[in-house]
C-alpha cells in the first residue's frame, strides 16, 4: 500500500479499487489478501473515528473520493463477476478431471490386484 498516493493516512479509494481490479485480473491472491486487510483496517478506522480522518478536510474528502472511485468500482464489480464465471468453469473442469481420476482409481485397483497376482506367481518361482 505504500506505493499508493495517500491522504489522511489512507490510500485513495480510487487507487485501491483500481489496484484490486488489476490484482484480480492477475489472480494475485497475496496482493488481494493484503488489500482485503487494508480495507478491513480502513473500515475499522472509519467506524472508530480514525485520528487521521478527524480533521474536517479529511472527513469531507471521503464522499469526494467515493464519487471519484465509482466508475472504477463498477469495473471492479464486472471483473469480479467475470472471475466468478471463470471460477465456475474451472470448478467444472476440476470435477471433469476428478471424474477421470476416479475412473483411473478403479482401473488402478484392477491393476493392483493383478500386480499382487504377479507377485505371488514370481514368489512361487523364487521358491522353486
Amino acid at each position, binding site marked *: 500500500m505504500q506505493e499508493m498516493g495517500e491522504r489522511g493516512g489512507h490510500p485513495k*479509494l480510487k487507487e*485501491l*479499487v483500481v489496484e*484490486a*481490479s488489476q*490484482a*484480480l*485480473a*492477475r*489472480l*494475485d*491472491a497475496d496482493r*488481494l*489478501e493484503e*488489500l*482485503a486487510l487494508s*480495507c*478491513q483496517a*480502513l*473500515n475499522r478506522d*472509519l467506524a472508530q473515528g480514525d485520528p487521521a480522518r478527524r480533521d474536517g478536510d479529511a472527513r469531507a474528502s*471521503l*464522499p469526494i*473520493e*467515493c*464519487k471519484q*472511485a*465509482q*466508475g472504477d*468500482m*463498477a*469495473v*471492479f*464489480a*464486472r*471483473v*469480479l*463477476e*467475470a*472471475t*466468478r*464465471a*471463470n*471460477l465456475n*468453469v*474451472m*470448478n*467444472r*473442469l*476440476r470435477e*471433469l*478431471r*476428478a471424474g477421470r*481420476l476416479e475412473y483411473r482409481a478403479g482401473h488402478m485397483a484392477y491393476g493392483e490386484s493383478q500386480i499382487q497376482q*504377479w507377485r505371488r*506367481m*514370481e514368489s*512361487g*518361482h523364487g521358491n522353486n
Partner: protein
Amino acid sequence: MGTINSALSIASQALDADQQALNVVANNVANANTPGYTEEKPNWQENSPLNIDGVTIGQGVTETGATSVRDKVLTARLDQQQQLASASGSRLTALDTLQALFTPDSGSSSSMAGDIGSDITSFFDTFSSLEANPTNNSDRQAVLSAAKTLSGDISNAAASLDSQRSALDQEASGVTSQVNSLTSAIAQLNQQIMTTSPNADAGTLEDQRQNDLSQLSKLIGINQITTENNGLAITTTSGALLVSGNSSYQMTTGTVNGVTDFFVGNTDITSKLATGGGSLGGYLTARDTDIPSVLNSLDQLAYGISTEVNTQNNAGTDLDGVTGTTANPLYIFSQPTAVSGSAASMSVVMTDPNKIAAAGAGEGTGDNSNAMTMASLANKTIVNGQTPSNYYSSFVSTLGSTVSEVQSENTAQTASVTQLQTQNDALSGVNLNDEASTLTTFERSYQAASQVFAILNSIMASALNLGEQTTVS
C-alpha cells in the same frame, strides 16, 4: 539364461522408452516459446508379461507416443471470452474517436466539430444583442456569423461521422479475408487430424488448430462443435456454417445501402455478426448502431434549430420592411425537408444581414419584438421536447456514458481473458495436485476480492448515502 536375457531385454526396452520420453521432453523444451504449443507427456504402456510353464516373465515398458496436456473446456471458454473482449475493444476504439469529435478544442487538440454547445449559446445570444440595437448592422452581421459557426460545426461533425463510418466499413471488410484464410486452414488441419489421429489427441496439429481458433475468435463470434474422428465444425454464433470437417465455407461481402454487408452463401449475416463478438462484431456495432445513433441526434438538433429559427424569422419584418412569405421566405438556414440528413446539409443561406427580421410582423423596422422571440428560442423546447442546449448536453452525456460502459465491459473482459490465459498456461503440463493448487489460488483471489468489494461497497454506500448497495456475491 532365460531370466538374464529377459532382464537385458527389459533393460533395453526401458532405455528405448526413456529415449522416446526424452525426445518428448526435448520437444517440449524446444517449443517452450512457440505460441499455442501445448506441452506433451509421454505415454507408457506395460508390455504383457510372458507366462511360460507357470512362470511369469515381465517384458518391461514401451513408450507409445505423446499426449498433449490440453483442456478443451478451458480453451473453449478462453476463446469465448476473447470474442467478447475483442468486440468491446474494437467498439471502444471507435467510440473513443466519436467522443473526441464532440470534445471541445483544448490546447493542441482540435475537434472537427468545434464546440457545438458553445456555438448554440453564442448563436442565440446574438439575438439578445440585436434586441438592444435592432437596426445595428454589426449586430446583424454577428447573428449571421454565429449562425455560420454553428451550422459549420454541425455539418463538419456529420461529415466526420460519415468518414468514421467509412473507415469502420473498410476495417470490417478487411476482416473477411483473414476469416476465410483461417477457416480454410482449420479445414485442412481437420482433414489431417481426422486422418492421422481419429481416436487420440493429435498433438501439434491440434495446437495449430487451437491457435487458428484463437485467432478466429479475435475476429468473429464462433461456436465450436466437436465431431467424429477428432473433427471440428465451426459456425458463427448465429449458426452460419464456416467449417465442417475438411470443408470451409467462405464469407463474402457485398455493398448494401452504401455499406459492406457480409454473407455466407446467399444469407446476409451482417446484423448477427454485429452481436456475435470478435473485432468484426465491435466494428459493425459501432458502424451500424453507435454512429447512426449519434448522427440521428445531430440531425434532430440541426432540424429543430433550423426549422424553428427559420419559421420565426419568416414571421417577422426585416430591415427593409419585408415580411416573409411562402414564395419568398426569410430563411437564415437552409430549410430541411426531413430530419434525416439535416446535420450534413445544415448551412446558412442568408447573405444579406438586413433580411434578419428583428421586428414583429406589421411593426416598424426599429421594432425588436421578433428578435426577442428568436432569442427566447434558446429556452424553448424546440428539439425533441428539450431546449437546444439541454438536448446537446444530454446527447454528449449519453455518448460519454456509453463510452464509459463499454470501457468497463472491455476492462472486465480483458481481465477475464488474462485470468483464463494464466490458468491455461499454469495447467498445461501439471499434475492433478498442481492443478488443485492453481484452483486454490483462483478461489483465494476471488474470496479476497469479494471481501475487498463488499467492504468498499459498504463504505461507499454509507459515504454517498446511496441507500441501495450494489450486490455482487
